[in-house]
């Protein structure tokens, strides 16, 4: 079982620069990541750019871990995009708005590879 964390998502500069360029390596390298603070990285035993698997009740996805100061312990941040959204519920609680932030998640080191956009989309089409 993985470590319990609270998942949030949001914008980053490089994500914004590649909004029109989402099939690029640059977008992949920025958005298929997960920011954690140092203590959480150590607790998980992962180094920068090593893959981690994040699971919620709605899905799971593999992304690369990245250390980021300013992120509180127990919080993980995945830039908004297809990787973060693989973990988001479609339940809008009657408001039309999915909950993109504050999602109960579990995180663990993995050997699995990070999927590229095309393969990620294929998962939905099956």
């Amino acid at each position, binding site marked *: 079982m993985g470590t319990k964390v*609270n998942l*949030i*998502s*949001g*914008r*980053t*500069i490089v994500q*914004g*620069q*590649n*909004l*029109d*360029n*989402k*099939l*690029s390596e640059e977008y992949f390298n920025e958005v298929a990541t997960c920011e954690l603070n140092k203590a959480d990285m150590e607790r998980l035993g992962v180094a920068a750019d090593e893959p981690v698997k994040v699971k919620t009740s*709605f*899905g799971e996805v593999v992304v690369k871990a990245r250390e*980021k*100061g*300013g*992120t*509180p312990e127990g*919080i993980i*941040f995945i830039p*908004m*995009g*297809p990787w973060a*959204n*693989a*973990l*988001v*519920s*479609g*339940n*809008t*609680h*009657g*408001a*039309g*708005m*999915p*909950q*993109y*932030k*504050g999602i109960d998640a579990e995180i663990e080191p993995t050997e699995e590879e990070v999927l590229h*956009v*095309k393969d*990620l*989309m*294929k998962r*939905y*089409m099956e």
Partner: protein
Amino acid sequence: MVEITDVVCSLCGCVCDDIVVEVEDNKVTKVKKGACSVGKSKLMGHGRIESPAIRENGGLKDCSYDEAIKKAAEILAAARRPLLYGWSSTVCEADKVGVELAEEIGAVIDNTASVCHGPSVLAIQDVGLPSCTLGEVKNRADLVIYWGANPAAAHANHMKRYSYISKGYWTEEGKKNKKLVVVDVRRTATAKMADVFLQIEQGKDYLVFSALRAMLYGHEDVVPDEVGGVSKKDLLETVRMIKESKFGITFFGMGVTHTGGRHNNIVNAIQMTRAAHTHTKFSIMPMRGHYNVAGINQVCTWETGFPFAVDLSRGYAWYNPGEVSATDLLVRRECDAALIIASDPGAHFPGESIRHLSKIPVIQIDPFPNPTTEFADVVIPCAISGVEAEGNVYRMDNIPIRLRKLVDTEYVADEEILERILEEVRAIKEKGGD
């Protein structure tokens, strides 16, 4: 080489309109000044969808505009519960045709507000919005609060042009005479600039708004030593700053709308503004994301009476976010075809709703290939509004600004593509005796 001044950026809700670019051989070759790095990247351009295409045997096959438009019209005319979604990264002229098309085929029309500031719209409908223009903020505000917003990453020119760092008529000293408060879960680049940073626990916005409201009304005795991870001392300091300011503004972002509580958070944020009015002038504004999400809300409202999530299948407008908003329709697997324009649900919708979207016929109108292209059945490339096509957009404070055309293109503009689809749909219906 030609230099073009007063270029308008068509990326985020700041809609910066003082950009200078160089154009050579019908291409933007340099962004000389005015744009942030994100806007610059937009203006310089990226790889395009090269040709209209229709999916056959799993792959996209190039075709002509006429063929793609005809196929799109056939899909829409045959659909029983079509969804027309997006509309925020194009111009109001195109949005207007979009609403007409929705009316013609009895579709649900929804826009990206439904996954960004939809909750803000609900809150505003509930309690109103004491707001102002960004010009007023620039010229008057001496206290700026960013709540659940990180403009350093998402609206990089916002502070410089309009708020904390800008210099205006009564704020000619810039940030020297201004205060900045940032409320966020993470210590973001914006938070690092703040005079007071309230690092709240995720999802505790409502509590912190309530505490500040109580204090502004003089009831600090009811506030405990810590609220949502924030010390009472820091809350008192924030209240002191509000009371001492001549003109304050709260800009709020997805940190407040995307989290549990949704519109209730915004209602409380607006009520906090009211509480501040017992001491000083105070305003509040949502940090709108796409450059024209405010515009589609305007167009949709003046055409149907409602800003987003409008169902036109009954022959009159039915507004019910949570029922006919895109995510809900998709999760219920209710719609049987979708037209996606000027947005990318493949990247920005919850996986649960993409699962259905990827299985129904999807028409995509966009200048760039993106995750939605991966499952779209008809792909229609368009001119880039603000680079290759002109038109009106609404900035985040609902000020209309006209996008400029910088270069010529063979790509067809969104408005014309939609008009041609509408024409085809009408021809199909006429033939069918509908």
